[in-house]
């Protein structure tokens, strides 16, 4: 009697098991790279982890199909390898002999991909669903672009520096002109004195005459 009950209980799962084959049209292959992702803190893959996977996937199916009560038994797994990769198919909760369509499974996984990843402490690259490409994050383009801000700062500083230097040199020239016009009256007196004294002291060497010597030889 007991054996009959056991066989009856195992029958649905056995029936469902034959639906899952590697390369099944409605199934997906999953590959986990736990050691690559976590290194020393990697956990061992065992039956419990597999149970968590099936439960997470059931959760994903429930979230996508609001209302349909998916259970752990609806996720059928087969062809486990030491790599930690396996195939899975999803049976419909209403009829365990039919499989949920590939596209629906893909949609469900895509929606809850983040939750599935974080349940296993993995990322899109280390928990791969072969055939389901991860959705790329939308790029963030800050506006205005950062380089324009830095350019503005540098250009502003340089521009201010140029203006300051030009203004100071104009002011210096003005000051020199004022001093010169004051000093010219004094200079005329001193010049007359040096002429009177003759060549007592050497004057300032005037370079502009050096080239003319060539012609005076004639």
């Amino acid at each position, binding site marked *: 009697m007991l054996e009959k009950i056991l066989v009856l209980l195992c029958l649905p799962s056995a029936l469902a098991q034959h639906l899952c084959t590697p390369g099944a049209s409605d199934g997906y292959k999953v590959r986990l790279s736990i050691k690559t992702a976590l290194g020393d803190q990697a956990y061992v893959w065992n039956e419990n982890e597999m149970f968590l996977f099936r439960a997470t996937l059931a959760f994903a199916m429930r979230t996508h199909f609001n209302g349909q009560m998916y259970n752990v038994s609806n996720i059928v797994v087969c062809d486990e390898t030491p790599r*930690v990769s396996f195939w899975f198919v999803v049976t419909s909760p209403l009829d365990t002999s039919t499989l949920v369509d590939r596209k629906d499974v893909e949609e469900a996984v895509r929606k809850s991909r983040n939750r599935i990843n974080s349940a296993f402490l993995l990322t899109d690259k280390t928990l791969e669903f072969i055939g389901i490409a991860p959705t*790329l994050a939308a790029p963030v383009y800050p506006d205005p672009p950062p380089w324009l801000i830095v350019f503005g700062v*540098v*250009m502003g500083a340089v521009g201010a520096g*140029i203006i300051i230097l030009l203004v100071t040199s104009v002011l210096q020239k003005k000051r020199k002109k004022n001093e010169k016009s004051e000093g010219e009256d004094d200079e005329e007196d001193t010049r007359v004195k040096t002429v009177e004294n003759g060549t007592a002291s050497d004057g300032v060497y005037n*370079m502009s005459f050096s080239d003319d010597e060539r012609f005076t030889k004639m």
Partner: protein
Amino acid sequence: MKLQLPNPGLEDRILSHQQLDKLEKDEAGDRPKWDNKTQYMLTCVGFCVGLGNVWRFPYLCQSHGGGAFMIPFLILLVLEGIPLLHLEFAIGQRLRRGSLGVWATIHPYLTGIGIASMCVSLTISLYYNTIMAWILWYFFNSFQEPLPWSQCPMNANLTGIVSECERSSPVDYFWYRETLNTTPAIEEDGGLQWWILLCHICAWSVLYICIIRGIETTGKAVYVTSTLPYVVLTIFLIRGLTLKGSLNGVKFLFTPDLTELAKPSTWLDAGAQVFYSFSLAFGGLISFSSYNSVHNNCEQDAVIISIINGITSVYAATVIYTIIGFRATERFDNCLSGNILALLNVFELPEGNITDSNYNQVVQRLNATHPEVFQQLDLKSCNLNTFLSEGVEGTGLAFIVFTEAITKMPLSPLWAVLFFIMLFCLGLSSMFGNIEGVLVPLQDLNVFPKTWPKEVVTGVTCMLCCLVGLIFIQGSGSYWLSLFDTYGGSIPLLVVAFCEMISVVYIYGIDRFNDDIKFMIGHKPNFFWQASWRVISPLIMFIILVFYFVTKVSEKIVYKAWNPESNTFPTLEEKPYPGWIYAIIFILAGIPSLAVPLVCVWKCLKSKKRDKPHLDNISDQIQMNNESKKSTA
């Protein structure tokens, strides 16, 4: 017997030693002066140490036998670099003129040398500042995390990444598309790229503010621009040595391969590198040393600056190759992990079964047991030496290879900012010398009225150069730049340097030159200087010139274009230049080189014409003079 060409009237054109001493004592003359010796040394070091030390020397070193390349480099540094440098310093300090003035003083027919120097300095200033604009663009873009060249942008409808980027790499894409926006051929100009135009204006503005009052402002700027590169190189050395795989790079760089010494191309490249690295024949060094006091020890300066330049080249090469070693090791590790992952996935082996150490054994075993599956895998071959010898030079090293390495380091924006500041300072300090080689001859030629203040002269020159430099801001700008670099900045310099040596030694007179140096620094130059100035250096210059000319003329004139539609993408496509480029090459290389003999001939004819009518008026006086001479003889 010393060869000395006749040079009448030389005494009248130059100041005698007594006049120089008087000038020095009275502090007369309106020539600008250095505030102190440090400013002068830093300016010269900054002029000599430039981008070439960072991105040309390491490549040459690695491709010509590593440590063995040091031998021709050091030999030619001593025989070619130091004598020429001492010559330029001494002649500038003695004659107290800029480059055009010096040659015109030695003999009016030699003005062509000064004009050729000026043309070359002008050509190089034009395109060098565009490189500075590119460096500024990268610098401005380094202030963000993640760096824009670390990942590919998404395409228009956000379904995937841009195809051009996917097929090449994020750094390539950022350089060729987002920076240059290159066209596939030099004929298509592609219009002005506004973002690079802004950086171009910024680069010329920074240069203007540093040279606005000549060496008064330049002398202050060099305290930063000449010292900062060394600080940054040291920081990078410390950072580089702590990265994985850096020692592989350094070992690869310095491993000597003595068979390279037998090849003439090694010696030619070493000679050319020494010559261009010292920024000789630009005229800038002559100008800078003319602002010194008469009794400054130019011999000591030449030796010190040469040693600093040589040491900097080797130091920069070491730093660059620690980072290249890191990048190559990273690529090798990625290649290996990619292969290991592929094997694990296909053969369903648990992770950790294949490691770096047992990789080869496992591969052999699997190949033996499952050959068909293995063939289908198509594993890439990973060889560290191949990655290390992907030697790149020039802009490729700075903007592609190094930037990629920076993205792999933690705190990438910091390293990017430091790196591009260093490149900017290296380039800016070289630009000071280039612009000096343009401004002073323009003033000597009286192109600008004497009443214009210095600020206006420098401003007008910078603005004109900025406008002409717009050629390089187009889509095809990088092709024009490499054209200018290859032809405008190579052969004319060699011609000018050769003529400089001949002029000073044989037209000015080596005896007079020796006396001048004895007057300036206190002792006559020893046998080494005599031998190198008279024979060795001119001979080396002549050989390099001939070989360079022959090599350039005989090789195919092609350029490498970035063409997304070509079959070899992402490798650059080799294209021949269109026909009209030959005219441009002639203008760039031929006109400065030909200026030397042409101006000589023109001056000769002009002076003959001037003498003729003069003679008619005073022919009697001359006859009388001749007769009186004959009577006294």
